[in-house]
């Protein structure tokens, strides 16, 4: 079937978009979705090319002691050689679909900015070749802050049980694919507990509690955004702590600062903790096709059957080299 767990993500996110346009009368514009996809892929390509040239140059410099002629004609042609440049289009598409699902804008230019910042962040905010901001998240936060015409509609997924089941089912499948279900569980568990305590203390009836948790946007976030294995902590213990911290901050921002988009701010603010946690608890980092001991426990056969010859793996190796 699909060889890369990201293919499943693309499939499911697309399904949600189609469902969203079909059944929820959002301000979802197909042209904005196309713009988001195009921008993310293009940015990914350009950034990957730049990275490739810089790496090639550095390698040349190391090999030959020659730092001149940084980019020659032959190298320029390499820009179109995807097997060399290896732009991770799948990741870019996932980011663009995530943006399309969560972000609302008035103008195409804002979506372009969100997409460009999202993908660029992967190449800029990284330590030891690991980016620590979730691309779609930083894209959303950036345009919320920098532009006048971007917003997030937390209520637009409604709270139907049907959606809950659909999200939980398919999302669960995906996170199992990528082996970070523990993050989702820790986040949702901690958040649900905090809300339960607050609900009990305030004396609201429990349907208020369920209504607060039944938010489609919250689940979408928990299942698809904070599970991105490339930007979250490597060790399980640190993922627990990290997810719980985000839940706590979300809870505070939502209930005491009344910010409707609390989850996105919480993730943005705490993303750099990944670096700290990774330095404290070390574990092999995640790659999309490779299995490693640290998470085989979570994902067992799904990743084990993924082919190891995929380009990404080569990239991983080259990065190691």
């Amino acid at each position, binding site marked *: 079937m699909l060889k890369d767990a990201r293919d499943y993500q693309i499939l499911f996110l697309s399904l949600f978009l189609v469902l969203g346009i079909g059944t929820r009368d959002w301000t979802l514009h197909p042209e904005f979705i196309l713009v988001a996809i195009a921008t993310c892929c293009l940015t990914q390509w350009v950034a990957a090319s730049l990275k490739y040239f810089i790496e090639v140059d550095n390698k040349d410099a190391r090999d030959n002691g020659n730092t001149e002629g940084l980019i020659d004609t032959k190298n320029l042609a390499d820009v179109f050689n995807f097997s060399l440049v290896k732009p991770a289009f799948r990741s870019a598409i996932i980011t663009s679909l995530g943006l399309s699902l969560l972000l609302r804008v*008035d103008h195409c230019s804002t979506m372009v900015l969100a997409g460009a910042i999202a993908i660029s962040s992967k190449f800029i905010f990284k330590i030891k070749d690991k980016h620590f901001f979730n691309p779609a998240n930083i894209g959303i936060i950036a345009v919320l802050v920098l532009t*006048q*015409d971007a917003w997030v509609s*937390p*209520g637009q997924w409604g709270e*139907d049980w049907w959606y809950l089941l659909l999200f939980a089912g398919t999302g669960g499948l995906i996170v199992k694919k990528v082996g970070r279900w523990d993050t989702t569980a820790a986040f949702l568990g901690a958040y649900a507990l905090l809300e339960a305590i607050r609900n009990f203390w*305030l004396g609201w009836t429990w349907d208020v509690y369920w209504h*607060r948790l039944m938010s489609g946007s919250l689940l979408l976030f928990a299942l698809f955004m904070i599970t991105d294995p490339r930007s979250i902590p490597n060790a399980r213990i640190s993922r627990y702590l990290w997810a719980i911290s985000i839940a706590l901050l979300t809870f505070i921002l939502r209930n005491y600062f*009344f910010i409707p988009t609390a989850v996105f701010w919480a993730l943005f603010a705490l993303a750099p903790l990944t670096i700290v946690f990774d330095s404290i608890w070390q574990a092999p980092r995640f790659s999309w096709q490779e299995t490693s001991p640290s998470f085989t426990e979570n994902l067992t056969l799904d990743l084990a059957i993924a082919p190891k010859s995929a380009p990404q793996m080569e990239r991983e190796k080259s990065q190691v080299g």
Partner: protein
Amino acid sequence: MNRLRISLSCILSLIIFIGYTPNAWGFCGFYVAKADTKLYNQASQVVIARDSDRTILTMANDYQGDVKDFAIVVPVPVAIEKEQVRIGDPKIVERLDAFSAPRLVEYFDDNPCQVYPASETPPPLPAPAGGAPQSPPARSTLGVTIEAQFNVGEYEILILSAKESSGLETWLKQNGYRIPSGASQLLQPYIRQKMKFFVAKVNLKEFNKSGYESLRPLMIAYESPKFMLPIRLGMVNSKTEQDLIVYVLSPKGQAEVTNYRTVKVPSDSEIPLFVKNEFSDFYKAMFQNAYTKESKKVAFLEYAWDMGSCDPCSAEPLTVEELKKAGVFWLKPNEGTNVFISRIHVRYTRDKFPEDLMFQETANRKQFQGRYVLRHPYTGEMKCPAAAEYKRSLKQRSEEQAQTLSQLTGWRVEDIRQKMKLVSDRSEPFWRSIWTD
């Protein structure tokens, strides 16, 4: 931080009838009767003028009972002082209603042997109801503190804070307010969030002096990051569906509900001409139908528009003076009217809307209106080959309009056809629609 904690708060709720029907006002919040009068609230209107954390809230009501029995309890974010409360002008709420009401527009076909612009029917408007005043409450402990007590216009206002919901309930009862059973439990969450309670009743003497026949809207100005309306209290004494129309005025853009879906009402449909005479029936049926289709748990957006203009206009845009009376506080001289209105209609019941309404303003400046189209066929003399084609198209158009109307309202399509006098047309042989000569 302190301010933020204090800001745990809220506002209020209200409701309304809709569209073109003559509106009645109704405080929602919850009514507290001073006597054993049966009270109910069916519809309320709230105007929220908001820029960042600053809010001016106008509550208008359709209170139908005796004025001396009128009282409301509304949780508010912060302690309110006398200078933060004003009497609103009922006409302004009417103006906002008229300006933003769903509208019917007409087009007239041109002679096919060669279409005019639209005219629209303006909506009629609400009128409040009337009554008479009451005696002042006594003080007592019970953990209830009177933060402020003052009169504004015909209203006697108390700002209370409480430690325990049972204490507040007892206090209100001892002071002659009739609290619906079950209210105590609902007061607790607001007390724990350190909200204050805005309690208003009518001073009969002042009311009689004022010469008004009905209660005027109350306006409260306050500062709080919490952008919400507490509808839960309003549901204590009402099991039935309640209508609330919220007019959010913002310098930024469209407002939406963040904890329920905000859905646009069906719009821009072409419907049969007879609807012109029964537009209010049409709108009520259509709204009910849309409400049911959305499982009764969404908020409907009926209008979203920059208040500098309208197209077509169901009422003239509000003047700067009127906007200020509606609570718009950010206008500066010579800078135009930067006001975006969102008319959000929520029909709610206890089971589908467990949580108070939370709002946000967005940067969305896309305009939207509930608009329904009538197209009059050309009735003059037509002498050209295109005329036959035009007449055929009319039949198809009528049938489509009948279907649309049926889908929108849930009315039986047979009944609609009858009203449109389409019945006989349908018995024509099918071939005649193609072989005409």
